[in-house]
């Protein structure tokens, strides 16, 4: 039958676009870098090692606030009514994952700035000496603050996954593995991001902390791969969603993005590089930059793949 009912354009199942994908990426990057930095701090402290001035922590103090702010800016700009976004801060519908995300981010964002201010206390006080009082108070509760930030960062990482998985009609999205996948990938992009920034800006010489972070990339990549396998194997056994899942990774542009970007750049390159590259390379700047960029691109690809392919298949 001819179409006599008008345009079908508005019924495109892909509602959220690349802006949301980049936002999800940025939120993951911020949360992941904080998790890695605080984790590293605790690791060092447990061994009684100094934590001040560690390049990775400095990197996280930059990435944490910058990434989440860029992400939030994109998110607000993507609203159809960006100038009325304050309504989302005034009204909370607690059945909505997004409302919980707003609450988490409302606390998380200022705390990340506090974290950064404490890391760069000298520089901050140089420009804003009037903050000295507040910062010294913060310094006193730094331990608790870090625990809180760690918890909130976990929350933010997981929330970006729940945000998508709460949409019941998209089989690829509507699964409990998605938050875990997003958290795992947040960790890998967080560590990669930290390595990249630390290597580029804060490392005078080879730093052992970079090496330590680099070492966790392995298990993190494994986790991410495991989540992906669980996601698609699980979907394949779930009846109606099976076709969608199979199609998503076998046909169309997004299948290429998946295999080249997510699997190739995000998992293959870092894992192969870590295991096969000659020892001599492993601590070179170029090596670290290449591998971490590859991971970052892989996670960016993952967010795009999930957002687009996930929305393309509607039950």
């Amino acid at each position, binding site marked *: *039958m001819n*179409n*006599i*009912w*008008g*345009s079908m*354009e*508005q*019924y495109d*199942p892909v*509602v*959220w676009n690349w802006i949301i994908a980049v936002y999800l990426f940025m939120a993951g990057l911020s949360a992941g870098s904080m998790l890695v930095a605080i984790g590293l701090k605790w690791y060092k402290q447990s061994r009684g090692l100094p934590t001040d001035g560690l390049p990775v922590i400095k990197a996280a103090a930059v990435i944490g606030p910058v990434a989440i702010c860029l992400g939030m800016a994109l998110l607000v700009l*993507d*609203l*159809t*009514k*960006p100038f*009325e*976004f304050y*309504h*989302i801060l*005034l*009204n*909370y*519908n607690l*059945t*909505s*994952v*997004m*409302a919980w*995300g*707003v609450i988490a981010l409302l606390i998380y964002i200022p705390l990340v700035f506090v974290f950064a201010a404490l890391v760069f206390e000298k520089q901050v006080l140089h420009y804003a000496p009037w903050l000295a009082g507040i910062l010294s108070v913060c310094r006193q509760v730094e331990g608790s603050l870090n625990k809180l930030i760690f918890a909130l960062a976990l929350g933010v990482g997981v929330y970006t996954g729940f945000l998508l998985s*709460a*949409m*019941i*009609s998209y089989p690829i999205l509507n699964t409990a593995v998605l938050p875990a996948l997003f958290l795992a990938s947040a960790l890998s992009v967080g560590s990669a991001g930290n390595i990249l920034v630390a290597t580029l800006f804060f490392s005078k010489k080879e730093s052992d902390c970079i090496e330590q972070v680099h070492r966790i990339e392995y298990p993190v990549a494994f986790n991410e791969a495991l989540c992906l396998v669980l996601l698609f194997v699980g979907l394949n056994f779930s009846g109606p969603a099976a076709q969608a899942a199979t199609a998503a990774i076998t046909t169309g542009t997004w299948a290429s993005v998946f295999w080249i970007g997510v699997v190739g750049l995000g998992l293959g390159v870092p894992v192969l590089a870590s295991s096969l590259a000659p020892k001599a390379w492993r601590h070179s700047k170029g090596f670290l930059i290449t591998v971490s960029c590859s991971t970052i691109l892989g996670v960016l690809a993952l967010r795009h793949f999930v957002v687009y392919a996930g*929305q393309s298949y*509607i*039950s």
Partner: protein
Amino acid sequence: MTKRYVLVHDENKCIGCQACNVACRSENNVPESVTRLQVRIEGPYGNFPHLHFKYNRVSCEQCENAPCVKVCPTGAAYVNADGIVSINENKCVGCLYCVAACPYKVRFINPETRVPDKCDFCKETRLARGEDPACVSVCPTQALVFGDANDLNSEVRKVLDTKPHYQQKVNLGTEPRVYRIPSRKGGIKA
């Protein structure tokens, strides 16, 4: 007792003529580039000459358990006391979460108001005046029945009690308030 407005679309009586589509646009001043209501004539299915069309009304399903309402961060999407899924334009920031979350893909951004729009059973226009929704009033073949399913004597209740019907995507647990009487050629015998 509270009202529970429901709509029944009889796919046997529906001829897919789009009178509802046009009447809805006029009564609710829906901008040209978007639509609250389409009836898609899908098919023909089957093998020649044993064919049949499916007359698929595409409009807000007025879910009892509405995913759009659940995901809305500000509560701009809400279920009114009469059961009609409604939108508080002032609270809305336009995050599109409801549009993305709707399993029926019937929410859209109104290009003039910049907030989500959809069928509201004409509650602002005709229902307020005590009239049936435009699509119901205008339907040439009386394929639509609208009313309060909580009223045991309503026509809509009688139809639901006496005719086989189904709802779309019940597996998602949305409990739509739009019911459909399947075409007798669609494989389900009346």
